[in-house]
């Protein structure tokens, strides 16, 4: 590991969260260094999505500390907005803005949040559209694109904010099988360029390729964490073994 990775970009210290009586996150500790790629997996309802949604405060944690890019998440709106500027997020359902063209989707936040001049924002947007390999769809509406294209636009939209960290919440789960690869290819490229990434995904091939650390969650806890090599070859915990045998069976 290089020196840069000792700088934690994301730090979760015994984070707890409840929905009413039900505890969704139990004493989560997690450190993600600069440039590190973490893949989070686990059965549905294990709290993995909730955890990464806590990192940019789409969900509120009730106990513990979350520090992102050196800023602690409190209820202070200024801090939350500062963190959200540094953290990009890609959703399962893409969540593109259907009333705006692809180009407007990409330039909206740079113009309004980063206060970039429109021309500059559009140049950047076209650059990132090229990066996600859909340079010629800028003037279409999201509804006119395929799922895979929409998700790549969503990635480009996040990148236009030049984030330090990218969060992926099951980015390929809503895609038809033939479109998964085009999205994963973009994500792999991003990983290779040194982006700090936390991905909730069940794409184990992708995990093997890019992950520095695998995190397995179950029932709101981090059950096991290991380098992918060890994680897939010799999982220690029984629950991890059971999960992996199911997910790798086919």
């Amino acid at each position: 590991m290089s020196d840069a990775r000792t700088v934690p970009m994301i730090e979760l210290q015994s984070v707890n969260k409840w929905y009413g009586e039900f505890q969704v996150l139990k004493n989560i500790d997690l450190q993600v260094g600069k440039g590190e790629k973490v893949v989070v997996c686990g059965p549905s309802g294990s709290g993995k999505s909730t955890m990464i949604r806590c990192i940019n405060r789409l969900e509120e944690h009730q106990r513990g500390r979350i520090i992102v890019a050196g800023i602690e998440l409190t209820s202070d709106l200024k801090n939350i907005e500062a963190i959200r500027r540094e953290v990009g997020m890609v959703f399962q359902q893409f969540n593109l803005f259907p009333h705006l063209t692809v180009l407007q989707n990409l330039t909206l936040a740079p113009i309004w949040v980063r206060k970039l001049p429109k021309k500059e924002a559009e140049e950047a947007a076209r650059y990132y559209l090229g990066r996600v390999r859909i340079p010629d769809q800028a003037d279409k509406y999201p509804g006119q694109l395929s799922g895979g294209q929409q998700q790549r636009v969503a990635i480009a939209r996040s990148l236009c904010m030049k984030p330090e960290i990218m969060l992926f919440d099951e980015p390929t789960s809503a895609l038809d099988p033939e479109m998964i690869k085009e999205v994963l290819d973009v994500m792999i490229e991003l990983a290779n360029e040194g982006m700090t990434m936390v991905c909730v995904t069940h794409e184990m091939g992708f995990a093997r390729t890019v992950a520095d650390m695998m995190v397995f969650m179950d029932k709101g806890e981090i059950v096991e964490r290991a380098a992918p090599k060890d994680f897939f070859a010799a999982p220690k915990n029984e629950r991890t073994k059971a999960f992996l045998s199911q997910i790798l069976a086919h």
Partner: protein
Amino acid sequence: MTDLTQGIPIAAQAPRPRWTGALAWLRANLFNGVTSTILTLLCAALIAAALPPVIRWALIDAIWSAPNGQACHGAGACWAFIGEKFRFILFGFFPAGETWRPIAAVVIFLAMIVAACDRRMWGRRLALVWVIGLFAVFALMRGGAFGLSTVETALWSGLPLTLVLAVVGMLVGFPFGVLLALGRRSRLPAVRAICVGYIELVRGVPVITMLFMASLMLPLFLPTGITIDKLVRAQVAFILFAGASLAEVVRGGLQAIPRGQIEAADALGLTYVQRTRLIVLPQALAMVIPALVNTFIGIFKDTALVIIISLFDLLTTAETALSDANWQGFYVEAYVFVGVIYWSFCFFMSRYSQLLEREFNRGRRR
């Protein structure tokens, strides 16, 4: 229709249909099967029965000019009555020598409405045009400056009054309604409670009650010596009422916005105001255009209720015109005349909303 098949090899041409042109259209749309044929014939019979008497009454047997009411009673409509009362129905008690002022005011209103219909015009400049335009309307109607004689608001009547009440009511009521709808969904309990309470209270009360309250009750609560113009009070009542009814329509749109849209906006770092203005409202409002326009049309027609506090809107001036001893009994003509005016405005709103809907939904289907 003639040359569509030119240049296509004969073998590729579809078999020649038995019917072409207008006949084919008739066949496809009016006589397409037994039920359709029966319905077409039934409708045709109804029209044939109803239309000739109407045309006979309105055009053929109509009397177009007459010295007075007695000479105007015949088998057909007495349009001479409308000709005689035209100015009064449209402009009411506005001083007769100054009729050009309400005419100019109505023209300015119509011009501003037409300008606002073009989506490319939407922006700060249009807002400025409207502010100047409304000021010009007020100056024209009220006078007291620019060498115009002062005309008390009590004398404002007919079409200008209806337009002022409706347009200002919608213009101010709409943003007010949007704020109420947003407040109703606020996370702050106090804001939410106030908005819910206000909406439910005002929406559950007839407009007439609101007008009564504004006109009769409000002065009782004001310190002695302070009076508020009756027109202003009616206008405020309309704004309050429009706000509450529009708020519920807007809420419907807000509720239809998927959670993911808000999360995506949040994740990009947009503030609440930016998120609402750029992401939530454009989608929410586009979704409820039909219901919004329905409410607007309702508000427009409800302006006729100001008769209750003796303001003379378009409908009331028409009814007043009927009380002329020289011209008695021309109810149908009077109501048809103002009905056509009301209908024109409402029909215009309805058509415009359809156009807007098409424009907003172009290429935006999920």
